[in-house]
């Protein structure tokens, strides 16, 4: 199962890149993530609770970042075991490119499942993976730039002291 999509983020590529490498961001953005510990270099241990069709399970496993091209591309891959529910694994190749007013983040996601999830939930796996990817990158976008706003979003630097909501990540790093 593979899918590709992209998001335009109103933040500079360096900001986006920093967010990708930040475990706190990963933890917030992975839907259902209960814990995530570790480092970019060593990889992360994660626990994620998800419901795939009729099967709800707590997946434990590892998340790794690889194929890193600093500031431009990274592969985020993960593999989790859900006990009797089976396993899920997948990854996203993420690429960043500077565009006017921000960064275009494009991603190719691939996912596969095994065991009971595959046997009982195969009909909905594709939809599920798409939803997971959408949710992950939407959360990521929100974390970096703040939620969608009716006002035209402020370009970075203009927001000082203004009403424009900042993404929590930007508040965190004070950008």
């Amino acid at each position: 199962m593979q899918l590709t999509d992209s998001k335009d983020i109103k933040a500079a590529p360096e900001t986006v890149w920093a967010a990708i490498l930040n475990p706190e961001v990963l933890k917030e953005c992975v839907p259902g993530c209960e814990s995530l510990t570790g480092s970019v270099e060593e990889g992360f241990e994660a626990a994620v609770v998800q419901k795939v069709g009729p099967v709800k399970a707590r997946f434990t496993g590892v998340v790794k970042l690889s194929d890193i091209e600093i500031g431009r591309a990274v592969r985020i891959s993960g593999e989790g075991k859900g006990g009797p529910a089976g396993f899920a694994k997948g990854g996203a190749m993420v690429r960043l490119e500077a565009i006017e007013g921000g960064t275009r983040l494009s991603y190719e996601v691939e996912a596969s499942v095994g065991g009971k999830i595959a046997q009982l939930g195969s009909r909905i796996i594709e939809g599920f993976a798409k939803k997971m990817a959408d949710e992950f990158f939407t959360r990521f976008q929100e974390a970096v730039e703040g939620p969608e706003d009716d006002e035209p979003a402020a370009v970075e630097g203009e927001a000082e002291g203004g009403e424009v909501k900042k993404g929590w990540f930007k508040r965190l790093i004070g950008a």
Partner: protein
Amino acid sequence: MPKDDGIGASTKRREDIRFLTGKGRYTADINLRDQAIAVFVRSEVAHGRINSIDTAAAAAMPGVLAIMTGADFASVGGNPAGWYVASRDGATMKEPKRPVLAHGKVRHVGDAYAVVVAETLEQAKDAAAAIEADITELPAIVNMADAVANADNRVHDEIENNVCFDWGWIEDNRAAVDAAFASAPHVTTLELVNNRLVPNAMEPRASIGDYDPGTQDYKLYTTSQNPHLTRLLIAAFVLGIPENKLTVIAPDVGGGFGSKIYHYGEEAAVLAASKALNRPVKWVAERSESFLSDAHGRDHVTKIQLALEKDGTFLALRTETMANVGAYLSNFATVTPTFLHGTLMAGPYKTPLVYVNVKAVFTNTAPVDAYRGAGRPEATFSIERVVDMAADELEIDKVEIRRKNLIGADQFPYTTPVGLVYDIGNYQATLDKLIELGDLAGFEKRASESKARGKLRGLGLSTWIEACGIAPSALVGALGARVGLFDAATVRVNATGSISVMTGAHSHGQGHETVFAQVVAERLGIPATSIDIVHGDTSKIPFGMGSYGSRSLAVAGSAMVKAVDKIIAKGKKIAAHMLEASENDIVFEDGKFSVTGTDKAKTFGEIAFSAYVPHNYPLETLEPGLEESAFYDPANFTYPAGAYACEVEVDAETGQVTVASFTCADDFGNVMNPMIVEGQVHGGVGQGIGQALLENTSYDENGQLLTASYMDYAMPRTTDVPFYTVDHSCVTACTHNPLGVKGCGEAGAIGSPPAVVNAVVDALQRGGYTHVKHIDMPVSPSRVWSAING
């Protein structure tokens, strides 16, 4: 008119009283004192190397009694293949060991590598979830063409190209067949897939191992179609338990369709666990486990070619098939796509030259073996589809092309070019009966009515033959069988005249308890109600080979008749003694032994009583007792045949196919119970329609089974099948068994799939979609719609 309960009567099935009132006693219903529960841990990956299995945490959990892994069974034997099939170049068949539990590698999703035994099911399940297996996932081999092409990726490390054998039949005919094709005026070529099916018996598999430390006897209660064969396999090949120390009991069994012929590792595991714990150990499969681990059926990819004269006369036929055997060889996986398939490729036709090539291929999928029809549905589908396609290409009427090529009623016994001798048949008669019964003449009128409702109507035919009554031991032995295929019966007349018949056949839905009693009742002239049929317990029944291949009546029934004949012969001796007459003057009729030409007679009951109260027997010439056994080995297969017509309506906008009618004109030889025969045909055709329209087993590229529940695997429901019109009045009695019977259990599933697909293609052609030449099964709405929209 037949008597109410004799041969030919539609006696209601006596077993249904218990089945329909919840009084059946299936393996899962049996609970032994102090039993523990087993849960199997199954692979989630299709192909992987087992590095280690950590059972420590699981073993410490509450209620856990034992955990066994593949390593615990490494030193016992494997579950063998029951039939040797050599390659056409003489190479030996590749037979990888099939262990009780996977060891070293896991080879399909659902491959069991450990078993947990605990006090309760919940405790066993919890502990199973705590087992940590370190398995390195390997690339899955799912597609047969890839399996053969990729020499480096192997299901079994020692088997190159994943090929079990590459079989040619008959090799000596190959050159002549090729020559006929080279010079043929017309050749029709069709590539097709015979879709993989999950058997889906209503009762999932279940086994209870019960070791008695006092006597050192083992007992296995299990869902089997052939308890003696299971006992033999466990004793002689797998666990080495002496046969006399192992009793196998297959109590009520809720359907098998082939999937319960085979011995499975779970049976050996519960026996071993019971011995280890000195407690009974019970396992009942969940439905998901059945999907993953029961032997599947069919799964052929075939190229078939038919060479013809321009007038439609068949000249030669050849096929190339890849048959999936899955990850391990199930007991009859090698014979199903070969000697039960290739030998049927002449069909009911006079085709003078036939050559069949079958490659059996290992893949990382569940084992594939015989499933209702076993090889003959695959043969029939290929033949009947290519015949229809040839008729289209040559613009010949589909009835006429068949009639022209059917073997004539005066040509029997008929020797086919693929090694069988059809003893008797009348294929024109069943075709004529079909034309009349199905009102084929009225089809055009019905087609216009359908058209008025916006539907495309199609008519599909299938003239089929099969070989069943499996099987003559001498013949199958010469072809590579490692078993005999006789059957056996013991008839015990009790002192009060009631009778127990112990049969080697096994009833798992067929109605043997009723039909066998009818046969014995008729022969002995006593009421069927005083006859009981005993089956399924190796400690009670003689060594018989069980039920499959539509063999029960033709083979086990014949053994029963032989035993009854011995009872009559013994009865005559007793009557001669009692009536002070010569044995040669005693006649047996209507349940009475009488002295010919006199009114001196003894009833069957009097003879029985005398046999057990032999106060004045001349013991040197007359033994007490009235009990006889017989073994029967058939002289040939039996060859049921018939003609089927299916009418469908296709909604060209949605691709939805509705079966409007289905008509069957069968020749099953003599019919013992027409109601049961009709029921068997209904069930078989229902399964055939299921295969043709609905059922498909789908593995993804990683070898994950995607159709592993009834949400994804479409079983036929009542609304998917029509009211059937069934006839079996065209009788040519089998020439070589005493009842003249042929077998009807698989016919419907063999003859029906091509009739359905032929009807769909016919509907589309008539509707103007002439580009549609073939649609693979299941002919789902999306496939039909895609075919229409090209």
